[in-house]
């Protein structure tokens, strides 16, 4: 029995020693982002940072001035082992420093070949889960997107979901509009079909698409929170705090890998829901973190 305890103790020591050494080695992790004047964006960034800090309490936070980014000097003072850049601009600025190899990206849309980190693209499985939970009558989910900007990470494996996911990729914006328009005009059916519009759909086209969908009672959703005001039924966006945690955990891994946002939260446009005939109870523990109109 003593042997067992002794080996257990030795095992613990062995397990603990490398961990402690690894912690010391990756002990300095910095998060970098520009000064944000927009309160909504500033709140999102703050939530992400909180999420990261919940995993990495010793996180070094560097907020730089966009006009005078003295990032190299500031990073040199702390010599971080990993640098988490929040926003595309922060990524670009960090890539100009000598810490470009230790970069983790976050809070914008990017692909795996571009940078390691957590993209704003929502995990497809998470999206399907949310849709099936919130819109149980859905049979088909149409995913229209531009190849250069993927708002939803398409799951490779069979998700065993009652909803059929249909990818509709397009080479450019014009094709996106064309495919989306034809989809709404001709293919999509009310209630049972849900169309996810691309997050970068031009504003002037957005009105036309929404008007057309409104007339035909087609359910539109988006991964861009801003689209909610225009008139999509709901938007499903990554949860900033959870995304922060996801980033923190990723920073602890030795390999810099790419991940989609694995957790989401949704917002609802009540006017559209009324028009489409969906009934969402106004309960306390709500599925929607935001309801407008």
């Amino acid at each position, binding site marked *: 029995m003593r042997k067992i305890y002794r080996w257990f103790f030795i095992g613990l020591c062995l397990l603990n020693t490398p961990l402690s050494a690894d912690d010391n080695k990756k002990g300095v992790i910095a998060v970098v982002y520009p000064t944000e004047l927009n309160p909504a964006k500033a709140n999102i960034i703050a939530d992400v940072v909180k999420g990261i800090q919940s995993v990495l309490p010793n996180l070094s936070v560097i907020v730089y001035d966009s006009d005078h980014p003295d990032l190299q000097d500031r990073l040199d003072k702390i010599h971080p082992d990993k640098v988490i850049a929040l926003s595309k601009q922060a990524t670009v600025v960090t890539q100009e420093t000598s810490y470009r190899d230790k970069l983790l990206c976050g809070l914008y849309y990017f692909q795996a070949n571009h940078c390691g980190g957590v993209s704003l693209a929502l995990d497809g499985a998470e999206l399907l889960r949310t849709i099936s939970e919130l819109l149980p009558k859905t049979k088909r989910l149409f995913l229209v997107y*531009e190849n*250069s*900007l993927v708002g939803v990470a398409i799951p490779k494996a069979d998700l065993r979901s009652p909803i059929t996911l249909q990818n509709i990729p397009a080479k*450019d*914006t*014009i094709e996106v*509009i*064309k495919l989306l*328009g*034809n989809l709404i*005009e001709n293919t999509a059916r009310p209630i049972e079909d849900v169309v996810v519009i691309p997050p*970068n759909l*031009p504003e*002037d*086209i957005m009105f*036309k*698409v929404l008007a057309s969908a409104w007339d035909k009672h087609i359910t539109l959703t988006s991964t861009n929170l801003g689209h909610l005001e225009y008139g999509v039924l709901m938007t499903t966006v990554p949860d900033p705090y959870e995304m922060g945690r996801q980033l923190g955990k990723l920073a602890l891994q030795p390999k810099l890998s790419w991940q989609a946002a694995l957790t989401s939260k949704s917002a609802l446009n009540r006017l559209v829901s009324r028009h489409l005939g969906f009934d969402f109870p106004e309960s306390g523990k709500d599925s929607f973190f935001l309801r407008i109109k």
Partner: protein
Amino acid sequence: MKRPTSKNIEQTYYRDLLFSLLILLTLSVFLVGLAIAKYSHDQSTRYWESYASIFASEVKYPLILHSSIGIANSAANFTDRKNVIAAVVYDENGQQISPNNSSLICHDEKNTWLMELFPSSQDLFCVRQPIYQSINNPSDQTTKNKIGTVELIISQQENAALMNKIWLVLVLFVATVLLAAYYIIRKQSGFLTNTIVQMIKVLRNFKNNEPNNRVTFSGSDDLDQMRDTFNDMLTSIERNEEQLEQAVILKTKELNQALAGSQAANRYKTNIMATVSHEMKNPLHSILFAIELLFEAIPRKQEKYLTYCEHYQRSKLLVHDLVRSIDAILFNAKLSASEYHKNSTRFLFVDLLNECLLNNQVLCQKNQNTMISKGDKSLWVQSDRQLLRYIVDNLLNNAGKFTQGGNIELSWHQSQHSELIIEVKDTGCGMSQQDIEIIFEEFRQIDMSLTRKYQGFGLGLAIVRQSAQLLDGHIAVDSAIGKGTLFKVGLPNPLPLIETGHNAA
């Protein structure tokens, strides 16, 4: 040329003033109209460009979807707008998509300023806007892609109506201002023109020698000063004019007195000369007669007969010379007093020449000159015989007097211009150009000294010139010192050569 009255001047002044005002107002109104038209056109263009932009934005979605119905509906929505005649959509290749049956064509030519000024309700105004769609590139940059064009064809009817109203208002404004100006000028004309009209009136009276005309207008200090200065100027001019007139009268009087004195002296001189000559001539005839009697009384066998004969001839010659000189003085006085009356007769010219040659024969022999005469001996002349005789006689006498042992050639002929040409040429002492200028003056000789070589009064050539002038002829002299002299006289002879020949026959 009819002179304008002071009323006409005022009317002309008012007319010019109104005309100037009309031009000024018309120009101003035209410029204002131009500015309004330009502003209106620019605003209209801007408005319709914005409208076309909205149309382009509206039609973009159905155009991307290639939805003919959507495009047609959008175009129809925009055609419903007032003044929009057609809303046309073209694809990126410029092919018209909607409407299919539009027969309206929008020309690219720009509106001229005249069309902007006076738009016609028939005019069309076209606005085009491209349709762009932003495309995201892989490099995260956005480019604009042209996917088509929209075109609005707009009627100018409303714009034309507006401009017509504006022009009407402006024309009414001009008319009102002109009427007001006309009224003011009519009522307040004196205020505007009194000064000028008064000055013109006074100046005209002044020009017509109406004295004591002065302007009386008054007003501001400047006007009063101008009035006083103007009146002072007129007074000064009048005073200077009076002084000038007095001076002219005085000078005229003096000149008249001098002229009268001169004429009286001339007449007195002529009378004296004539009287003296006449009183001298009568005793000379008596002397000549007495000499003749004395010569007849001398016995021819007397020893000194030849000597007496020589004295007789010399005395007779001297008396003849004296008579000839007195005759010259008398004839010159007669010519100077314009008391000679021409008497034109027809005669054989050679007869007159023979008389003259005979007269000068003695002088010619005395000076040992050879006299040669050549010319048409059958030539008949119609002229004053006495004057012609004086001319030839004096010229021969002059040549004989100033030629010693030389030749004197008298020639004559009738020119083709019905002119009798008489030439007297000698080989005498000749004279300089300066001398030629004085030889025709009365009582002038080249050598005026008492010890001069050639005697005479200096009247011969003066009589020749006066006689030639009286006969409407002319005289010319060609001479050089030591080389002789040529006098050439041209006198009109109305008798043609044929007639002279006939008469001669």
